[in-house]
Each structure stands twice: as structure tokens, then as C-alpha cells.
């Protein structure tokens, strides 16, 4: 699903974020991306979402070489991908329903299908009945679940998450992780960047460990 081949990323300010990163994440696999802050976890996810482009090397997502995706085609590329952010990135002037429906509006779904999909997504994250609420009225954990519902509403094959439990207590973190596990069980490929070691230790999933821009363990399976 995701294949990195000798990927280097150097930012315009001269910082080398990734150096010679190679790994392959199988379709249907779930993995953690770990490592200390500044190790390059966010950069790696940005390369997957085409927020950044590699300086060298190739990044394949779903058999598509991202370097061949032209700027104009990036929106279509991102629609096949669910992204979860540490800071949720919800639109606070819209209801929970409208937030979750956003990718579906973009994908031109009919009003009826949209309602069905949004409710299904909210049901999966345990927030059915929250449609008319405003995100600001929700707790941090609930907001994160709305963000996850938005990421899965369009039923992507791949979900990437950047520190999805970053601001949550252990109990809430565990709940969030269970959500990802459930998606993975139905075949969704999941890549989660986190430095929450306690959480990782509780699970058997593959760990890609980044340090100083290099993968130090977990690259070979």
C-alpha cells in the first residue's frame, strides 16, 4: 500500500528530515511509526499525503508513484486517503454532521447517501446523535473521534494518523486505538505516527522506528 524507496527529504532551510528511508507497508497492514520528536515521523506522513514531495527517491501509495501526481491531480489523490491529525483540524463554524460530510460533499455524493454514510461513520466512532452539535462543545476525545469519522467517511483504503492520541489520557487513547484496530479488521491499511510508548507496548503491531531521519528498526518484515 505504501512503499518508500531510498527516500531523502531536505527542507528548503537545509534541514535533512529523512535520509535513505525504505520500507513497504502491505495492503491491509497496521503499523506504528515511532521515534522521538523531530525524527521525521510527520515528514514521512506528509510525503504519503503529498503535502510535501521527496527530494530524492520514490514514494508509492496504492501502486501510484506520487512524483507522477501533478499538482492539479492532488485533490483526487487525497480523496482516496483518510488523514487524522493531532489537532483534529475540525471546522468550528460547522456542525459535526457537516464536518464529517465534508469529504463526501467534495466527492459529489447525493444528499441521501451522504446522510447514510455520515451516520454510519459517526456510529463507528460512537458519536451517533451528535450530528447537530458544534465541535467546540465537545471534549478533546470526542473531537478526535469526529476527526476520525471524517477520515473514514469516504471509506478510504488507507488511513494515516499523526499523533492521534497526543492530547488524550491513557483511557481515551486506548479507545481511539481500538477504533483504528476495528478499521484494520475490515481491511483498511493503517499507519499511525505516535510516541506513546505505553500504548505501543500493549499491541503486537509492526513498529517502524525512525531516528534522526533514518529507519532504525521495523523496515524489513
Amino acid at each position, binding site marked *: 500500500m505504501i512503499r518508500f524507496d531510498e527516500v531523502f527529504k531536505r527542507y528548503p532551510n537545509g534541514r535533512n528530515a529523512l535520509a535513505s528511508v525504505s520500507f513497504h507497508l502491505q495492503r491491509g497492514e497496521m503499523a506504528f511509526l515511532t521515534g522521538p520528536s523531530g525524527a521525521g515521523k510527520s515528514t514521512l506522513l506528509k510525503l504519503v*499525503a503529498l*503535502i510535501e514531495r521527496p527530494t530524492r527517491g520514490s514514494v508509492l501509495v496504492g501502486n501510484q508513484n506520487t512524483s507522477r501526481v501533478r499538482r*492539479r491531480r492532488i*485533490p*483526487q*489523490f*487525497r*480523496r482516496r*486517503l483518510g*488523514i487524522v491529525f493531532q489537532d483534529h*483540524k*475540525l*471546522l468550528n*463554524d460547522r456542525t459535526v454532521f457537516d464536518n464529517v460530510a*465534508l*469529504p463526501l*460533499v*467534495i*466527492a*459529489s*455524493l*447525493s*444528499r441521501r447517501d451522504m446522510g447514510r454514510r455520515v451516520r454510519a461513520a459517526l456510529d463507528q466512532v460512537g458519536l451517533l446523535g451528535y450530528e447537530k452539535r458544534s465541535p467546540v462543545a465537545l471534549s478533546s476525545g470526542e473531537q478526535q473521534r469526529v476527526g476520525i469519522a*471524517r477520515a473514514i467517511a469516504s471509506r478510504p483504503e488507507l488511513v494515516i494518523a499523526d499523533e492521534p492520541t497526543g492530547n488524550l489520557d491513557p483511557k481515551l487513547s486506548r479507545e481511539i486505538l481500538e477504533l483504528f484496530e476495528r478499521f484494520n479488521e475490515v481491511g483498511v491499511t493503517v499507519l499511525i505516527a505516535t510516541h506513546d510508548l505505553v500504548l505501543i507496548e500493549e499491541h503486537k503491531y509492526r513498529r517502524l522506528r525512525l531516528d534522526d531521519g533514518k529507519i532504525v528498526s521495523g523496515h524489513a518484515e
Partner: protein
Amino acid sequence: MHRLKHYLALHAQNLLGTLGRMARQPVGSLMTIVVIAIALALPTGLRVLLNNAQILSGSWDGAIDFTVYLKLDVDTARAEELTRDVQAREDVTQTVFISRSEALAEFRAYSGFGEALDVLDENPLPHALIVRPASGDKADVEALAGALALMPETDFVQLDTAWVERLNGILDLARRVVDMATILLSLAVVLVIGNTIRLEINNRREEIQVVKLVGGSDGFIRRPFLYMGFFYGLAGAAMAALTVTLSLSLLASPTHALAQLYGSSFNLAGLTWLQTLLLLGSGALLGWAGAGVAAARHLRAIEPS
């Protein structure tokens, strides 16, 4: 069919969303609309006044009466005969004969030199014919005047078209000035709306990033801003139309009173339906264009990071 329905639903949603957004900042929105209204009302108002001046000059243009003064030795019988001859011409609508004695009486009554005339032994005024040409065209009028000037009894023909030409010259110049004002103020409308949309884009920077992250295309992101520009332009134009109509109605009664003093039934013409429609359309188009320019310049720069 489904796609079209969805497309329309999306537009309707955008439309309502944009109106709601504008209504949530009533003071700011209103100020922008007023600025646009002023910029549009100025050229519109000037154009309406110009139209009125044209109507007025046109009504004079069509009726350039001129006077044929006969020689002093032409007697009344011959003059009346001439009047009938001229009247019979195809290129003449009407001929009025003013005899020497009538002219004298009129002069005595209106000039204030009545007593001075008493000093003279005889009437110094000639017979005159006031001729109304059938055609208002300048060349035709001049040809007719020339023909009448060649009659042996004619002393001279007084044809005063110079002032009409001067008036038309002034109107031409005014039209040019109004055209320039229209272009400049239209540009101002584009810039005002462009700037408003630029601020709006900056205010919604985060939202734009989120929409880009979940796969919103440039067109999808641009749409609400284009709508906003469209509405600003449309609302500004509507307010401009209202302003012009209101101003004209304030001028209507004094204008009518003035016209009556000149024996005219002239009434100020306002904005026609077509002109109003044209104004609204131009306003909306300028707003759309301003928003388009701002969106093209600023949306691309906002990328998720």
C-alpha cells in the same frame, strides 16, 4: 441527471452559506456594499443625466425653425403669396407669415423700446416667414435655407444651427468623460471586492487548508468566494440603482417646474428596466471578476503544512 442535481444542490448550498456568512458580519458587509454602490451610482447617475440632456437636445434638433426676412420693398400681398409658395414645398412642414405690422407690435410689446420706435417715421421691420423644415437633418435644413435665400424677395435667412452643434459637441465630450469615469470606477469596484475577498480568504485560511487536505479541488475551494464577490457586486448595484432612482425623483419636480417656465413639458427620464438590469448584471459580473482575481492570486498560496 444525478450529477446535475448534485451540482445544483451544491451551488444552492454555497449560495445560502455565503449569504449567511455575509449576514453574520452585517456592518462590514454593508460598508463594502455601500462603497460599491457609490462607485456604481456615480457613472450610472451621470449617464442618466446625459441621456436626459440628449433627449432635450434631440427635441430641439428636430425642430430647427429658421426665419426668412424679406426685403423692405416687398408688399404684403406678395409676401402672403410667397408664404403660400413656401408652404407648398415638400421639404417644409409649416410656414408662418409675420407681417411688418405684427412684428412691430410684438417688438413694441416685448422689447421695452416702444417709445424709441415712435421717434421713427416708418416701420423699420421687414415681413418675415418662420419656416419649419420637414427634415431635422442638418444638411437638409441647410439646403432648404439656401434655396429660400435665392428667392429675389429674400433679404437674408437667419439659420442658427451653430448652438445645436455646440451643444452636441459638449454632449459628446460629456459622454467621453462619463465613459472614462465608468471604466475607472468599474476598476475600483473590482479592486474593492478583490480586497474584501482577499481578507475573507485570509480569515478562512485554516478552513481552506482543511478542505485541501480532505481532497477539495481548487474549483471547490474557489466557489464560495466567487459567490461572495457576486453578491457584493449585485447588492452594490441594487443599492446604486436605488440611489439613482431616489435622487432623480428628488430632482423631478423642480426640473418639471423649470421646464414649464420654458414652455416645455419635459420630464426627467429615470432608469429603464433594461438599464437597471444592465446595472445589476454589470455589478454582479464585476464582483465575480474581483473575487476571481483575488482567488487566483491568494488561494494557491495556501497549502496545508
